[in-house]
């Protein structure tokens, strides 16, 4: 979608810019004044970033080595600063063994037998198999924005099956409201390093770990961002936090496009910032009954990538640590969503799979003000600031009822 709008609005000539500027001034006076004050400050201080000699309009031309780089290596697209993703990539296996655990994927014979990474030239000659550039465009298209209502549910199994995260995101573009619920649980393996005494203190029964969970329920309702921190431990009351939605990273621009929360976006952000080389692309896969493109990606060094992104810091590795990551993905051909991925790093694996994908009338709407109010009634505010927050907006008529 972003790429679409870039194409739609990105062809301005000077004359066009002049025409738009004369008809529609930039509206925000507050921002205008702030910028002017900064200009004055710099002019008075003699700050100019560089001396310029304007004698004509310079054409933007790439240097030749870019062509060499782009031909020799994967096309690397970077889209702004990366925000810390929530998931841990832990392993790589040199053998291609990744397959969705369910049997919903069916690859055609031609694509299933593909083992060597095809070149871009070869890809363009194979019907139905996108090139690397087309795959990146598909991933960045975010065509799911075309649907006004959207639900995505997923399961993320990490630490070789030890931990499981289940999530459900809902969006209604008519009201602008969104919600996302995440619930984490672990199997008995997870608790093996804790003492019996600690487990008893926490009330954890190893024979019944499936019922133990922690959760986040996030509601992006009108101008509010509300998060309920919950757990299965009934000794503690659930807590909630409220902030202005505009101040929340979950609203930049929405939960579906937030690399903090949504795994499809986390992986896309890493692809866009050059973490992975795309090694292999195949068409003809299906997942959840939807046509998909599968791809294998490879990160030669997580450490180097983290350093490049300014997230290095001091790290201590054990002897078995493997710095490479292999990532296999299935991308929905219509929406560009990553519906499944599996990453492997050494002995560790993670597997993400979308299990619910509903659009428009099939999708549930995000929770309304009455539901949220009811939910908060059984919770405690996590800070005094939250306690003093005006939540009267939850009592107002829902947006959907105001739309004529």
């Amino acid at each position: 979608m972003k790429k679409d709008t870039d194409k739609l609005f990105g062809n301005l000539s000077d004359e066009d810019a002049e025409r738009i500027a004369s008809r529609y001034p930039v509206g925000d006076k507050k921002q205008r004044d702030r910028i002017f004050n900064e200009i004055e400050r710099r002019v008075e201080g003699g700050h100019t970033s560089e001396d310029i000699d304007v004698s004509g309009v310079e054409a933007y031309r790439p240097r030749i080595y870019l062509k060499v780089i782009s031909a020799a290596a994967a096309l690397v697209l970077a889209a702004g600063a990366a925000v810390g993703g929530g998931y841990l990539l832990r392993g790589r296996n040199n053998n291609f063994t990744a397959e969705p655990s369910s049997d919903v994927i069916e690859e055609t014979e031609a694509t299933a037998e593909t083992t060597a990474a095809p070149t871009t030239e070869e890809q363009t000659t194979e019907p139905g198999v996108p090139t690397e550039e087309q795959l990146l465009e598909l991933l960045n298209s975010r065509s799911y924005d075309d649907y006004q209502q959207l639900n995505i549910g997923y399961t993320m199994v990490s630490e070789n099956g030890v931990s499981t995260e289940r999530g459900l995101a809902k969006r209604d573009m008519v009201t602008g409201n969104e919600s996302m619920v995440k619930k984490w649980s672990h199997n008995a393996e997870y608790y093996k390093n804790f003492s019996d005494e600690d487990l008893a203190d926490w009330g954890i029964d190893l024979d019944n770990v499936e019922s133990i969970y922690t959760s986040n329920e996030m509601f992006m309702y009108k101008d509010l961002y509300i998060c309920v921190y919950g757990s299965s431990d009934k000794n503690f009351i659930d807590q909630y936090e409220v902030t202005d939605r505009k101040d929340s990273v979950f609203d930049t621009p929405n939960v579906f496009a937030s690399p903090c929360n949504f795994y499809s976006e986390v992986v896309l952000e890493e692809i866009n910032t050059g973490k992975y080389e795309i090694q292999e692309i195949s068409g003809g896969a299906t997942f959840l009954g939807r046509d998909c493109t599968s791809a294998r990606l490879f990160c030669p060094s997580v450490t180097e990538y983290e350093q490049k992104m300014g997230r290095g810091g001091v790290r201590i590795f054990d002897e078995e640590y493997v710095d490479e990551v292999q990532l296999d993905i299935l991308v929905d051909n219509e929406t560009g969503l990553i519906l499944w991925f599996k990453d492997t790093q050494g002995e560790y694996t993670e597997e993400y799979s979308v299990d619910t994908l509903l659009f428009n009338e099939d999708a549930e709407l995000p929770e309304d003000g009455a539901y949220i109010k009811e939910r908060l009634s059984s919770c405690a505010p996590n800070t005094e600031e939250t306690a003093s927050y005006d939540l009267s907006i939850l009592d107002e008529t829902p947006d959907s009822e105001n739309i004529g």
Partner: protein
Amino acid sequence: MNDSEILELLHRSPQNGHRALFDEYYSYVCAISVNILRGIGSREDIEECVIDTFTAVISKLDDSTVGSVKPFVGTVAKHKAISMRRSLMSRSGKCVSIDSEELGELRSEERVDQNAENSEMTRILLEKIEELGEPDSAIIIQKYFYGQNANEIGRTVDMKPATVRMRCARAMKKLRSLLRDFY
């Protein structure tokens, strides 16, 4: 205020002249900067580019400047934006094939036929945006040509940010249907 009046004011009262120059060309510089930095520059980058452009323009204009200011402002804005784009691409390690469609957006006026076509498409685009009516047309322009967010647009059109987001989504859907025959 025309260019002669701006230059006159700059001569008589530099600070008032700066403000007049800024008010006259702020939207123009924003539109150029957003257009060139689209897809790679953040809002802060675009703002920095606009500030840098005016700082450079003001420092270059003096008593001896005569004639039209607009081409000078436009050229400085393009220089600054292209320079920033290069810097951002270099910093992020972004490599683009020489055949990339993206580079087409930054080529010079040499491609007369392409420019003419783009100009015609933009004319149609603006026409269809105006057909949306207010405040939707203003919301679309502010968001996509000036890079304003829902809060800033909300202050302009006197709406809550959530309402702006909702109207924007609807307006884009309508705009796409209006443009279906042209794109």
